[in-house]
């Protein structure tokens, strides 16, 4: 089976806009909900404090319940590495995120969970957020391979060009392949992975 079979190519569903830049993972899921040994039930706590403090928060609004494409601003998911943040969003129903930019660890976590995070220009994000606000029931389609996002509401069917669409590997695909690649190395001495440096004899008595 080819690793590319794990690609998630397209996500289609209703959108939900969350305005603002630098929304950190503490905001997405406060630390007190990390005191758990599973990710179960994480979805109901997505944006818990933000929702309590702001009745108008999109995650509170009936019209956005069941949405699957989240549209955010710059540096979304910055801060803590907690995977609980994308887990909470995923378990709430989010399947793809369009944003100006993303915190890198959050981005990596989303990749592991198969949630495409695509970047778009500030102008396109504002457009998309407006379109979704105007017609929340209309589906938004995110095409990962074409790197574009289409909202059916726009009269011109404007397409938002997105960037940074890398392959969406399932974690399992990587792991299995990694295991098979690494197996022969286990017979070598510790530190032998430095062979790629070429020529020099690798140190064997300390970690590197």
């Amino acid at each position, binding site marked *: 089976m080819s*690793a*590319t079979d794990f690609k998630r190519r397209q996500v289609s569903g209703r959108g939900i806009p969350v*305005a*603002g*830049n*630098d929304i*950190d993972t*503490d*905001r997405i899921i*406060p*630390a*007190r909900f*990390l*005191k*758990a*040994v*599973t*990710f179960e039930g994480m979805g109901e706590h997505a944006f818990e*404090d*933000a929702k*309590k*403090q702001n009745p108008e928060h999109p995650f509170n609004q009936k019209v956005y319940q069941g949405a699957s494409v989240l549209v955010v*601003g*710059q*540096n979304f998911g*910055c*801060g*803590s*590495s*907690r*995977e609980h943040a*994308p887990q909470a969003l995923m378990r709430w129903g989010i399947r793809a995120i369009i944003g100006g*930019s*993303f*915190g*890198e*660890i959050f981005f*990596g*976590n989303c990749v*592991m969970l198969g949630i495409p995070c695509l970047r778009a220009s500030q102008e396109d994000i504002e457009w998309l957020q407006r379109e979704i606000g105007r017609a929340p029931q209309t589906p938004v389609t995110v095409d990962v391979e074409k790197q574009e996002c289409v909202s059916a509401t726009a009269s011109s069917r404007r397409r938002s060009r997105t960037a940074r669409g*890398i*392959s969406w*590997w399932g*974690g399992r695909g*990587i*792991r299995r392949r*990694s*295991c098979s*690649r*690494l197996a022969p190395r286990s017979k070598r001495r*510790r530190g032998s*992975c*430095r062979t*790629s*440096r070429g020529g020099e004899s690798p*140190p064997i*008595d*300390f*970690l*590197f």
Partner: protein
Amino acid sequence: MARTLLDKVWEAHTVRVLPSGQTQLLIGLHLIHEVTTPQAFQMLKELKLKVRMPERTFGTLDHIIPTADQTRPYADPEAEEMAQHMYRNMKEFGLPLFDMASGKQGIVHVIGPELGLSQPGMTIACGDSHTSTHGAVGAIAFGIGTTQVRDVLATQCLAMAKPKLRQVRVEGVLARGVYAKDVILAIINQLGVKGGVGYAYEYAGPVIERMTMEERLTVCNMSIEGGARCGYVNPDATTIEYLRGRPYAPQSAAFDRATAWWKSVATEPGAKFDDVARIDGAAIEPVVTWGINPGMSVGVSQKIPAPESAPETERPTFREALAHMGFQAGQPIKGARIDVAFVGSCTNGRLSDLRAAAEVAKKGKVAKHVRALIVPGSQQVAKAAEAEGLNEIFLAAGFQWRKAGCSMCLGMNDDKLQGREMSASSSNRNFIGRQGSPTGRTLLMSPAMVAAAAITGVVTDVREILK
């Protein structure tokens, strides 16, 4: 062509290039703690997989543990459950755990360097964003999520894209009363909280070169707050002397061999960077954050900026910050009243941090309305501080002397802000709700500045106390 540390370490740990263009990167050291691993171990069990390189995997307890009464079972049943899971998983998979009984327990980013586990030229991963800390010894160290923790446990590898590299040069000489914390807060303020996205930071220049290892750890710790997933300092004589004799560092002849390798990974003269940023170290004064991300800061003598001074796209965040903090634009930060003072965390919970705070604590008593906590970063830090009598200084001044843990940096134990309390904190994040109360407020600053605020009850320029 001259190569950088990032180039050399990355290449040395490349297993192969994946079809996605990412690198399958070998991880030299995997540090784990109780909060981001139970789900990873569960996935391993379900997949019937073992830990691939248990000799490169080390665990501790830090995030959830109480810092006052550590009697088991813990008063908080959820914390007790997480600790039990950690003990069970470490035993089942045959991994070493630095628990309370070991005498080596502490915040994962304090104990890694302290034990000599974190070494130059390594790749280091941990399910915690402040893993960037370990870059101070000349390693490429970064935070990962729980599913990636599973992958490192199972394969000792990660799929990673190589970041671009920005050299951040801090020129000149720092003034008295200006610490490593002020340097990194000034860097983040200048380059922005998203300025480092896609980059690794190489910290260099005379200010960085003169820094002790503990100061470098503070700087690298907050790389992630500037958006950079990892940051490092090239290994030099300071690095080598710091590591000499540490329990997990190579010993005697092996240490000399290791030293040769460590020196060889430093960035070569003339190496090219994707970007270079210069910061004038002499212009930095003690820094205090006024907002809801670590980039929103001013020098202690300055006023809180108006939203209009920011680019238009940033203004809503500025307004939100002012509203949350209860500040007015144009108000001086000096004199802002605090309720809580916290010295600790992986940013500033080391011996030199406690010494700096104690120097100020000697000058007075904690203000009546202030609750002040000193939380050492590790059991070894606590022991060393007690040997010097720092705990006595703090207790005499009215500070609480606690046991090692993450504590009020993120409020996963009992150490939390209450309601809208304002905290002067030596930690790393002033995000809304970060210190345990959804409406709590955080002012980030150096440990000396926290101690100064504790004894005056308001944000104070520590240089006036140290005169």
